[in-house]
């Protein structure tokens, strides 16, 4: 029926003067957009299947391809966008919840872009990171400030809480094996090891092959408890309890059955081909005191040797929740903003639930200080840290370290087509199809991840030097280094910064 016809979102433009009909695009496209018709001796397209992943564009030997927005459009209206209209068509046809992936693409304010960084001059010299030492090493964990001394007067250091040492203040955020491929996981694990930082297993368990990277692994325990075992807990340098995710606050993880391959099913300890849907809450956590029990069970299980991390989504009362968590024994708190990525989430939730990480981070940091417990817990900010300047601003707002995921995927080939839930990622990342996975070469990919983090680190140091700061400790929470631009008084007050020009 024609009412079910969904026009293509993208137009595939092929320059026939350039095309040599080599059919590479046809072979490479997992969405089966391109095909060759021998009768006409011509390349044709199923345009409506195109997701704009740019794979064909990059491999075409003659640069014959361009993908653009489909110029055909419904009648324009600010209230009813074409996308909204189409989504209603889709739901009318299927009766199903809309699924999406990667971060919220809607036009909400990006506060990173409304903050400006300071530089020193005259009264305070800037520091040149090429000539002077510049430090970005970080320790995450509780910092008890009460000093006790041994009988000989030396400081008693035995009561210290476990600490995670990060050579770079950036870690790779949770992405489960299942949502991303074996090769993608291997690349992250090897890069974290080479960098001296951490990657996170996500909620899908840990493949046997990757136990060798345990010193740089954070293992996640989520509401589905997939792949959680004693060995698994022991394999992590730290354990992260996932209470929420910025992209989909209020619901659990979602792995489409198409991605549950043999290996994934073994690692997750679930049947092959079944959807892996984590429960919305942890079924043993209905309040903060239950969370405390889980924290201490995990500590008990690992001899109090590993920091326990609690990850929450940035929602309206995030500051109060964070303060509860800081008092519940957790060593590290992760706050995940509403623009953070996901392998699959209901569209309406991804696009409408939660708050920006900038505001959540600022209010949590301030609340913990007001309650005089900021030193009791480290804060990791996540959920759309897109560049080194976002990173600098996040540190100045009060983050101790950062998690990145989308930039890490970009480093290994992701083109942000936001189709991960389709399980047919042409770049070998968000897929389990062996022919696609092998397109991602971990030997190359891990080096690109290392490059990315080092490049960011270099830029962070450059900006710190400009502010006359030579160690990250002195940037953390240093909000005087930020000014807002085009923000209301209320926004400035929440961010705890002054306006540019003040």
């Amino acid at each position: 029926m024609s009412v079910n016809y969904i026009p293509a979102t993208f137009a595939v433009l092929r320059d026939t003067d350039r095309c040599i009909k080599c059919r590479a695009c046809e072979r490479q496209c997992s969405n089966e957009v391109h095909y060759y018709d021998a009768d006409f001796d011509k390349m044709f397209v199923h345009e409506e299947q195109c997701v704009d992943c740019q794979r064909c564009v990059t491999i075409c030997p003659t640069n014959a391809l361009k993908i653009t927005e489909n110029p055909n459009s419904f009648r324009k209206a600010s209230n009813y966008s074409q996308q909204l209209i189409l989504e209603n068509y889709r739901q009318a046809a299927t009766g199903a919840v809309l699924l999406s992936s990667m971060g919220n693409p809607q036009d909400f304010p990006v506060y990173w872009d409304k903050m400006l960084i300071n530089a020193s001059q005259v009264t305070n010299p800037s520091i040149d990171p090429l000539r002077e030492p510049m430090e970005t090493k970080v320790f995450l964990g509780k910092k008890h400030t009460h000093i006790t001394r041994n009988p000989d007067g030396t400081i008693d250091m035995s009561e210290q809480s476990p600490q995670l040492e990060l050579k770079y203040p950036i870690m790779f955020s949770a992405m489960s094996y299942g949502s991303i491929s074996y090769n993608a996981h291997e690349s992250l694990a090897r890069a974290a090891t080479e960098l001296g930082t951490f990657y996170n297993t996500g909620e899908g368990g840990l493949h046997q092959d990757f136990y060798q990277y345990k010193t740089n692994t954070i293992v996640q325990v989520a509401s589905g408890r997939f792949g959680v075992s004693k060995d698994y807990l022991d394999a992590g340098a730290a354990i992260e309890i996932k209470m929420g995710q910025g992209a989909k606050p209020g619901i659990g993880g979602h792995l489409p059955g198409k991605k549950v391959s043999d290996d994934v099913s073994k690692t997750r300890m679930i049947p092959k081909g079944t959807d892996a849907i984590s429960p919305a809450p942890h079924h043993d956590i209905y309040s903060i005191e239950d969370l405390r029990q889980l924290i201490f069970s995990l500590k008990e299980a690992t001899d109090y040797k590993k920091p326990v991390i609690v990850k929450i989504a940035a929602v309206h009362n995030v500051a109060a929740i964070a303060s509860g968590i800081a008092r519940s024994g957790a060593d590290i708190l992760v706050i995940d903003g509403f623009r953070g990525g996901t392998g699959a989430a209901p569209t309406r939730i991804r696009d409408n639930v939660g708050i920006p990480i900038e505001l959540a981070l600022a209010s949590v940091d301030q609340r913990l200080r007001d309650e005089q417990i900021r030193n009791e817990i480290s804060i990791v900010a996540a959920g759309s840290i897109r560049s080194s300047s976002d990173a600098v601003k996040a540190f100045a707002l009060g983050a101790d370290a950062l998690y990145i995921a989308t930039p890490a995927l970009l480093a290994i080939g992701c083109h942000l087509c936001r189709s991960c839930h389709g399980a047919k990622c042409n770049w070998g990342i968000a897929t389990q199809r062996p022919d696609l996975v092998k397109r991602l070469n971990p030997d190359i990919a891990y080096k690109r991840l290392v490059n990315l983090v080092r490049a960011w680190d270099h830029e962070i140091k450059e900006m710190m030097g400009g502010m006359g700061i030579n160690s990250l400790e002195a940037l953390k929470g240093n909000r005087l280094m930020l000014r807002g631009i085009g923000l209301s008084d209320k926004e400035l007050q929440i961010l705890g910064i002054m306006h540019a020009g003040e």
Partner: protein
Amino acid sequence: MLQKEGAVRIPSGCAITGFISRDGRRITGADAIKSIAVMHDRSNGLGGGFAGYGIYPEYKELYAFHLFFNNNSAREETERFLNEHFDIVNLSRIPTRQVKSITNEPLIWRYFVNPLPTRLAASQLDETEFVTKCVININTTINGAYVFSSGKNMGVFKAVGFPEDVGKFYRLDDYAGYSWTAHGRYPTNTPGWWGGAHPFALLDYTIVHNGEISSYDANRRYIEMFGYKCTLLTDTEVITYIFDFLHRRRNLSLTEIADVIASPFWTTIDAKPTAERERLYYLRNTFASLLITGPFSIILGYSGGLMALNDRLKLRSMVTAEKDDMFFIASEECAIREICPDATGIRAPRGGEAVIAELNEEGRRKCL
């Protein structure tokens, strides 16, 4: 409208000087004036001040509060507060002499006080904490009153003006103490408020500082968690609170404090023997937010000693020298030569190296 100190953060350059007689000989404030005056060009007439230790031997068991009042009603309100919390043993105006360049002076008073035992017991605080709380209370709640000195057997004298004029104004040649520090300020803005001049003091800790720290807000937001209130927004204020917190409340030694606030770089720490490495890791990590970056040279004055410290890159000049029982610290060598032409052992301490000079046994017996 120009904002008052505390409403806005004002960067400044400065001159500092200090000396101590380790034998506890009492030296008049004239020497401190002479020394700081040579560095006239490092100040711009917008702030000068002194701290003298051992200057009130007759009242050495009592807290000496120096206060600025905008008017008599602020004074009366403060005296009511003091009477409720302390036994006031002596009170008077601080004697001054007219100096042409020093104008707009507030009322300047001195009180020798002792906490009321009943109030102290009821507060369940130790004595120093009680006194600190009272000082912070006056400064933040009584409009027009400001305690700028609150230690025992020591005192701060400061004003808006060139330091040599400030010294004359306060008749510092009439005071004698075993150690002195002095400060000349070069703010980039017009503060015009006497409380904003340096040294900054809390109990017997005083800081004179030359520099502008880039870690200011990180340090401020951390230290305010422990009950301090940074009302002046100056480096000197936050550094004083850091010393008070780490020294008095956390019992770190002065060199341990230097390892926190001007910590060695990680690469340097990594090259140390195991025990030392672990100690430095512990201190730096535990008090990570108290690392101070950016240029600073400070002299900390306390009962019985002086400590000099530079930022870890040594971005500000500072030299030390000795002569017999005397130990000198100053931004420039000339400030030392001016009062001790044949001082020896002139040395520029390394960045992050704490240099400490204290009363010797004889000095302690005489002065403490």
